[in-house]
């Protein structure tokens, strides 16, 4: 098979996010912090979240190590969650997980924005955990706010 089938996985926008991730680093004044690991590949993701007075996400930052898919997914997630309430984020996380596992034709763009380019991951089951790590992290940071391992 030619490697063109890989273009569904490694879309241009994904490569750009992975090479120059948005909101990369940490937040010294974070309200919530979490570290998640993907035990199958040794990846580590640290996520810091700052909330505003109304409880919405004011800022978010991530760091750690991971593959192209996990880094791009984290970068896109940070773009999409700023300004959202924890309840809205929970809904997005659920939608993201559904998108890359259920292979439905539903249109997720309204809810997930640019992160819909990751839908190609559904064709690569071995890589689903790479894509979901950051989304699990933001969910757990907001729900539990603890220092958890996957």
């Amino acid at each position, binding site marked *: *098979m030619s*490697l063109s*089938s*890989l273009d569904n*996985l*490694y879309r241009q926008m994904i*490569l750009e996010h992975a090479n120059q991730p948005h909101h990369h680093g940490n937040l010294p004044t974070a309200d919530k912090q979490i570290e998640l690991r993907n035990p*199958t*590949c*040794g*990846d*580590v993701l640290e996520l810091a979240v700052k909330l505003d007075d109304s409880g919405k996400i004011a800022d978010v930052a991530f760091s750690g*190590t*991971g*593959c*192209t*898919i*996990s880094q791009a997914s984290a970068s896109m997630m940070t773009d999409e969650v700023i300004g959202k309430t924890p309840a809205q984020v929970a809904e997005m996380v659920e939608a993201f997980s559904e998108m890359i596992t259920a292979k439905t034709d539903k249109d997720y763009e309204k809810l997930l924005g640019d992160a819909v380019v990751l839908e190609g991951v559904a064709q*690569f089951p*071995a*890589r689903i955990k*790479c894509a979901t790590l950051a989304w699990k992290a933001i969910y757990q940071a907001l729900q539990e706010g603890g220092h958890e391992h996957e």
Partner: protein
Amino acid sequence: MVKKISELRADFPILDQTVNGEPLVYLDNAASSQKPKQVIQKLVDYYEHDNANVHRGVHTLSQRATQAYEATRDKVKRLINAPSEREVVYTKGTTEAINWIARGYAQKILKPGDEIVLSYAEHHSNIVPWQQVCEQTGAKLVYLDLNKRGQVELADAKQKIGQKTKLVSLAQVSNVLGALNPIKEIAELAHANQAIMVVDGAQSVPHMPVDVQALDIDFLAFSGHKMLGPTGTGILWGKRELLELMSPLDFGGEMIDFVELDHSTFKEVPWKFEGGTQNIAGVIGLGEAIDYLLSIGLDQIQAHEQALMADVLPKLQQIEGFELYGSPDPKDHLGIISFNLAGLHPHDTATVLDMEGVAVRAGHHCAQPMMRKLGVPATARASFYLYNTQEDADKLVDALQKTREFFK
């Protein structure tokens, strides 16, 4: 090899297929090997003709099953040059074998302050059982460093193995670096300090001649599924007197002599360890796998893999950004090469290789302390076996070059 590799490949039906439109190149043998049709047929024959529970039966099928099941012990004895087939215990794999040594033997003898010596290159299955034993006994772990060739360094071992050492447990061949450890020398050092030498043979027994008497070790653990045998099979070999001291962990059916209301007596070694109905078909299949390996010769298999290493390693090192872990000398790689492409996560590498039909592993290879020593979160790993060819090696090189270009 006596059998030409083209003929030998025909024994492995699974290799004759395309994956993602490309001919399969299976290079994940360190995780699990493929099975020849002789082994597969043996399982079918057993279930079609001889299936019955072993030891207990008077009837003909039970006798046949028992005979075939017990016959594997003798084959293992020949494979590792054990003094007696009575020292061969069936387990479900290396992990179970090491856990049994840890809990059935080490836990009984260790006291607070005693030391267990491991290396940074160990598989989790040769670390975690010992951590558990340390928690129970107050013993502590001491780790040996590796030299530039990826081996345990004797000078370092001489510093760390001493009077407090009660047990040394090392992989003969590292599942990440593929380097061969000087087991005989370390065993000598251990014995000079009255310590027991345990060897994890998961990556050595399938690939090279291993002689437990020549090495003068005390326990050897290895897996059947990495050496052409069925999954769920493994071997624990131990010196008779140590197996006598070692307690069984699975109590119940099969392993007893007499059961009274408040106590029981157990069978002799090795049967006292094999409680409950065992993986009878698997053990018989493992016997067939050993016959297959011995018919080719472990020295021949080692030479074949060595020739592949000598050819492919220099080619790989010419790929732009190829980062090799362990020794640059092919002789220090017993069929295993761990690597990364600069700037690329091994998961991305493995996905591209898979699209080219090349199966490699990506991750920490159940050796997180080793990954931390290497300073990487994960690596890709290509691992070869007797049925891999020059073409397989070239395909790996070619697919890695394509990976480079794809991510340019």
